């Protein structure tokens, strides 16, 4: 019933705006409607029943966005998404700008962390899926790995303060700091429980009365008239359990080299996550205590990707290398070890069929440290409207 109601809300937004893609309202208020769709089919030919280890088959990602410009300094955006989780609100915020050096974003939004989340919309990135450190459910063995380091888009309630300094030419410095609800988990958690962040039965509210804090600093350097080099650093931290005892810290670094229309991108993310040892760690964990007789109460999860994207007429070609690693004790039932890794090699191309609609094709080879290697093939169609 709730899903039905949410569907109706989304349909109402779409219906209310579809006939008015751009409207100038009274008092200079302007409204725009936009969206995107991706249908992707994931096949894992190295598995008889891929569903056991992946969300294979066809998935649709839909987004419907409404932007309202009240004035030059005040705007609001609402975005409704439909994908594997059903209808979700991906954006619902106000942007309030005092100056270029000081802006406020309040509501539900994706906080500034890393470079990829800027392009998370499937119509804005060329591969069918996301880089491993940002994967949200399309990687193979997602349950064994409990997904990625920071699934993108990470949507959360809170406030973000940001600013930009222009330093001539294409040179810019941008900063952001935010307070959000943060990830959630149980009091006896081994790791984040991502489902708790999108479960109406637990409410879309903070689970521990403490905000998660984060910040980002990035700069762009002009290399030539159409070439830039961008460098960014991000951090986020807080507690994720209801009792405020389990801490996590997440840091990231990203570089983007743009040579005209060719992009070279690389990012690295590292998360230190504290887990509950419980009353009897020996019964809970696969590995025993360290040399000092005590159990470590945290694990490290890091991930990276490096990719090159080059357009050639109606084609875009992407070569991507990404991976993830987990270091630390594991639950006694986990198939992972204390040092597990996955590397993935992706070759992808897109072909512009018509207007902005693209056919996406990619082949991926997974190299797991704890499981047999796998091959995955994506075929999809994506486009904005």
């Amino acid at each position: 019933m709730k899903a039905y109601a949410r569907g109706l809300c989304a349909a109402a937004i779409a219906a209310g705006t579809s006939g008015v893609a751009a409207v100038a309202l009274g008092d200079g208020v302007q409204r725009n409607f936009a969206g995107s769709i991706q249908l992707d089919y994931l096949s894992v030919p190295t598995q008889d029943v891929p569903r056991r280890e992946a969300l294979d088959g066809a998935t649709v990602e839909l987004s419907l966005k409404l932007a309202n410009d009240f004035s030059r300094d005040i705007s609001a955006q609402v975005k409704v998404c439909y994908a594997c989780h059903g209808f979700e609100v991906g954006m619902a915020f106000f942007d309030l700008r005092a100056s270029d050096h000081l802006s406020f974003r309040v509501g539900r939004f994706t906080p500034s962390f890393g470079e990829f989340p800027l392009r998370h919309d499937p119509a804005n990135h060329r591969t069918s899926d996301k880089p491993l450190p940002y994967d949200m459910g399309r990687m193979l063995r997602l349950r064994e790995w409990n997904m990625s380091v920071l699934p993108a888009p990470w949507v959360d309630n809170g406030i973000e303060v940001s600013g930009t300094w222009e330093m001539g030419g294409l040179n810019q410095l941008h900063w952001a700091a935010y307070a959000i609800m943060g990830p959630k988990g149980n009091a006896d958690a081994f790791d984040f429980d991502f489902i708790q962040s999108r479960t109406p039965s637990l409410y879309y509210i903070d689970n521990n009365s403490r905000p998660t804090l984060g910040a980002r600093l990035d700069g762009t350097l002009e290399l030539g008239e159409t070439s830039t080099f961008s460098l960014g650093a991000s951090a986020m931290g807080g507690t994720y359990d209801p009792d405020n005892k389990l801490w996590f810290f997440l840091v990231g670094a990203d570089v983007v080299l743009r040579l005209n229309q060719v992009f070279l991108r690389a990012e690295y993310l590292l998360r230190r996550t504290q887990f509950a040892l419980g009353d009897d760690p020996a019964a809970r964990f696969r590995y025993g205590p360290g040399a000092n007789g005590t159990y470590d109460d945290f694990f490290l999860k890091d991930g990276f990707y490096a990719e090159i994207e080059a357009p050639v007429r109606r084609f875009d070609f992407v070569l991507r290398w990404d991976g993830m690693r987990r270091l630390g004790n594991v639950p006694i039932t986990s198939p992972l070890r204390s040092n597990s890794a996955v590397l993935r090699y992706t070759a992808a191309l897109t072909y512009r069929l018509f207007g902005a609609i693209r056919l996406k094709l990619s082949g991926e080879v997974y190299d797991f440290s704890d499981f047999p290697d796998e091959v995955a093939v994506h075929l999809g169609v994506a486009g904005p409207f």
Partner: protein
Amino acid sequence: VTTSVSPREWAAALVMALALVAPATLGFLGCRGPKLRTGLELLTQGRPVPPEILAACQLAAHRCSRCHPLERVDLAKVSSPEHWGNYVDRMRRQPASGISEADAHVIVRCLVYRTFGPEGIQTIDTKGVQP
């Protein structure tokens, strides 16, 4: 004599077949299909434009493709030259947009010309449309 083909061999064959067939097919379709405008040509709609607008559109083509395909610009519907001003300003405020305030003024000129022609440029010159 029976031979069995492992899933791994099927996968290798499938990937090789796709790698060979897909680009060839798409390339064939691309050569035969209607010409799609890309980059700068998409913004100027393939029409001759004044040098100032051409330069503005070159800048727009570069800046706007930082975060999204340029066709997003093609799809945007605006109701007035002022609307483009606010639209571009909202994009400029996105984190790491790479669009400076001076850039925004130039980009708006390209987009206004594209949508409203020389009359649109006249309007923003008269009214002084921000960003």
